[in-house]
């Protein structure tokens, strides 16, 4: 038995979504998102829970969750900073932004600060090439990045 359970709100959302798809299997991505918003990451327990809800195996859920880059299979920091490393951003100076972030936070890409405050990731094109260099900060996009802009943002947290 898994310890994880959907919140009441997510339970209702799940039931509602069931009416929107021809088959239950389609709910795997929406369910993984619900888990991630509820817990911050996707634990083994949650996978067992989802397997039961979706009528499949936990292994299957893991295989799906691990295919997509946005599902966190371990806990991450309160603030998730994801900097775009692809071409338009690179041409507009993303490398300076990236090294500033690693210096300021004292961690490498793919790492989380010890106090679990920040996780730093590099990601491929965010679809914000017109505002390069760009990053996402939790669910929001921040474009036209400069070192000053980042410092101001982090100072204000």
């Amino acid at each position, binding site marked *: 038995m898994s310890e994880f359970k959907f919140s009441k709100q997510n339970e209702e959302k799940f039931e509602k979504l069931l009416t929107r798809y*021809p088959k239950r299997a389609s709910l795997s991505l929406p369910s993984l998102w619900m888990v991630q918003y509820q817990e911050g990451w996707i634990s083994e327990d949650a996978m067992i829970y989802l397997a039961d809800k979706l009528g499949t195996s936990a292994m299957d859920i893991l295989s799906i969750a691990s*295919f*997509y880059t946005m*599902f966190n299979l371990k806990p991450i920091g309160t603030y998730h900073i994801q900097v775009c490393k*692809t071409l338009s951003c690179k041409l507009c100076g993303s490398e300076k932004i990236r090294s500033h972030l690693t210096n300021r936070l004292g961690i490498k890409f793919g790492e989380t600060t010890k106090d679990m405050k920040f996780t730093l990731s590099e990601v491929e*094109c965010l*679809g914000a090439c017109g505002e390069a260099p760009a990053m996402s900060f939790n669910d929001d996009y921040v474009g036209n990045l400069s070192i000053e802009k980042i410092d101001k943002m982090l100072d204000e947290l």
Partner: protein
Amino acid sequence: MIVHIVSKNFDIKDSHKLKVALKHDRYNSLEKLFSMKPFEVTREVVASGLRGKGGGGAATGNKWELIPKEHEKPTYLVINADESEPGTFKDRQIMEYDPHLLIEGIINSSYAIGAHHSYIYIRGEYVFWAKRLNEAIDEAYKAGYLGEKVAGFDYKLDITVHRGGGAYICGEKSALLESLEGKRGHPRLKPQQKEPEWFFGGPTVVNNVETIASVPYIINNGFEAYRSHGTYCSPGTMLFGLSGHINNPGIYELPFGVSMKDVIEKIGGGIKNGKKLKAIIPGGSSCAILKADEIKNITLDYESLQQNGSSLGTGGMILLDEDTSIPDAMKNLFEFYHHESCGQCTPCREGCGWVDKILAKLLSGKGSKKDFATILDACDMLNGKTICVFAPSVAFIAHSYITKFKNEFYSLCKTD
């Protein structure tokens, strides 16, 4: 040069809200739409020559005609809002500034193919845009533009927004449908003959956001009005993008057939910091690179780019100035392709990584001219032996970088 068909309401304040959208022509096409038979709608779209804006440029109307007349399972319209091709950021503008145009387009197109449920598959990172779409959809349901009786007519339609989880390959239509069915986003093997896509066994059309957003104009104004823009083979307009070393990056709606050079200079304001243009990637990273001296006579349409050995793709142009290292830019893109290969086919999974490694070796100064033959071998391996067109297009672009900028690559080699 700039025209406003899809982008008409982009600059209007609060145009994403139903109240404002209704004042600016949204849902105007429905009266006419429902006075037509579904096949007449499709015929209008066929006659307009509308081509898909997701990168492939397939004729939209002809694709709709592949839906079987009778089928026991329901028909679906799936909107591709995965927008992950480097250099592409146009669909986002439609969803941000005019989501009701997309909904109106979905009503038009669903009616034509006989679909009563449409899914918008949006990339996972677009949280803000998914929210915006959902708000617009809620408004449309409340106002009776969606649901049991669309705008009071005898037609039922539901729309559901489905968020991806971060995977470039889910933009490929069959991978997208696998993902929508709740699986890993692996492209499917394609049949020999032309047939529709399938979602849980139901015949399905997958179209890009911008394609569908172009439909209400065609229904409202007729195919000739749409054809009055653009060229014979590339009718209408496209939301072109400019990014990289350009003074005015952004999205601009232009008729097909305008001069690429004029667009860069007059709309883009030229290359940043007064530098010279070195090269341009014309329509997202999966298009072959062009040298500055190749673009003089190029016009922005499918035919011109194809004749010049590249492709129009998504229309998202990336500009590279004279100081850019081409091997470095190519390495950047190969890290992308290496990371994004879905891994199903060995040549693709291994080949992309292999080229990436050779480029790293060249850039570190440890490469030799022999490595070029290896890259070409890898391209050969990638070409034509895989499930989807990801690998062949990677081979195609690799070839363009190393042949057009051979000397720059050679100058990195200390030995033969």
